[in-house]
């Protein structure tokens, strides 16, 4: 008797619980239904979920919603690149507007030895802090070298080499994170029409003698380049390259030869000649700082 009643009660209680749960969850599923636009979900799936913010939205889901509403273009995702843009265009049923890969460029070329009038700085080792202090280095435009941009980069694509922020174009995806944090605003995004691009590697707007006093490399504003190349113009004391009309590096050959300083430089992925030039040099085993060696990505489960 006791056994039978216990067994039946137990079975009924459990089954009732199962039915009730099934019913409540089924009801909740209908009552609390959130109409997620299937387009948004599809777009989110196509995005790389890096949540880097390079598109200008807070995270991938925000961008996906903006694309679905038609407020944002399909080609804004830098990490996703062309493939991602193509998939988004398919989902939205629009044409991919051609978009060049934008990459970060540091408009400064001076390492520590070329920068003059430097004084020891022992405050908080960030550019943002050092930028508030006068006299850390003579040039008030150039790179400070405390690596705010390095910390901002999610892709290990920028490092500080002898005091100068240097982009590794093999890793850069153009997410703009470094440009946003630079307190001196010397990192800009340049459309890379070729593997290697000519850039003005100086940001100093001062007159020639003042520049010479603080830097061995900086642009003195001699206007030599802008007079010889029609795709360059002067903006104050600095030349600006008009990238809309940038054809090939050859267009700037004369200007490059005439530059008395070293302010016009090529940046980009190493060319075949560069690689050949250093092929027989012995490099130390460790050539690049690995910024994330101690970051562990172990997965933990119950």
């Amino acid at each position, binding site marked *: 008797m006791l056994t039978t009643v216990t067994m039946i009660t137990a079975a009924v209680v459990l089954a009732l619980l199962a039915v009730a749960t099934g019913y409540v969850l089924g009801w909740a599923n209908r009552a609390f239904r959130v109409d997620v636009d299937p387009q948004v979900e599809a777009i989110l799936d196509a995005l790389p979920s890096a949540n880097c913010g390079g598109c200008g939205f807070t995270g991938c889901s925000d961008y996906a919603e903006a694309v679905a509403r038609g407020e944002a273009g399909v080609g804004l995702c830098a990490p996703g690149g062309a493939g991602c843009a193509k998939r988004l265009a398919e989902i939205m049923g629009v044409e991919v507007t051609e978009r060049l890969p934008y990459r970060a460029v540091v408009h400064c070329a001076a390492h520590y030895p070329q920068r003059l009038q430097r004084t020891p700085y022992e405050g908080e080792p960030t550019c943002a802090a050092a930028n508030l202090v006068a006299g850390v280095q003579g040039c008030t435009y150039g790179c400070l070298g405390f690596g705010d941009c390095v910390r901002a980069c999610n892709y290990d694509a920028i490092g500080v080499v002898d005091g100068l922020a240097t982009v590794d174009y093999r890793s850069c995806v153009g997410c703009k994170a470094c440009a946003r944090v630079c307190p001196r605003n010397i990192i800009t995004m340049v459309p890379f029409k070729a593997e290697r691009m000519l850039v003005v590697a100086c940001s100093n707007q001062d007159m020639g003698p003042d520049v010479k006093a603080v830097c061995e490399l900086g642009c003195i504003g001699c206007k030599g380049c802008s007079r010889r190349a029609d795709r360059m113009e002067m903006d104050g004391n600095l030349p600006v390259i008009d990238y809309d009309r940038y054809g090939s590096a050859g267009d700037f050959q004369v200007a490059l030869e005439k530059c008395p300083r070293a302010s016009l430089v090529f940046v980009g992925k190493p060319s075949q000649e560069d690689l050949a030039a250093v092929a027989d040099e012995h490099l130390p085993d460790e050539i690049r700082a690995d910024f994330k060696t101690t970051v562990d990505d*172990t*997965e*933990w*489960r*119950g």
Partner: protein
Amino acid sequence: MALPGPTAAERFFNGILPENPVYRQLLGMCPTLAVTGAVKPAMTMAAATAFVLISANGIISLIRGLLRPHLRILVFTLTIAAFVTIADRALQAYMYQMSKELGPYVPLIIVNCLIISRCEICASKQNLGVALADAVGMSLGFGLALASIATVREILGSGTWFGLPVMPSGWPNWGIMVLPPGAFLTLGLLLAVAEWIGLRRQEKGTET
């Protein structure tokens, strides 16, 4: 799937060392840390887990054709919970002191990810023989891991092994080893040793 899955024997040996649930997969950390203060409770725990794992894997493998995708996790947990209850009652009936010592960690086998992940990965896709072999292999691997941690902790912490004194009489028991911090430290260091052996083997492999 064109490729046939691993055979029963492969599954069995995989569980013991190459895919050891604790050292390689970091599964089932709660009991690994909680009951390894001495070897006896650790082995009881391993046995209870083995019983649940083998029975649940068997049942799931038998009903695998009836599972619906969105309800399968519910079915898994229901089955596991039922077997855990049986194991818990059996312990209370036949090993009362031990069941008191293990306390809440026997019912907590329900949420041991080792079991649910084996149900999901293996039992719900394979036939009975393979599922059972997998369960037995995994249980042995889990038992070995628990035994190794418990051995270190019991010998250093109480100077005994399986309750028998093994250290010289003057041994000052390291009380910390049987306390919670000892569990974390021992497992951390043992994981490091396992990792170090793995690294050494890799280096040797590349040299030759």
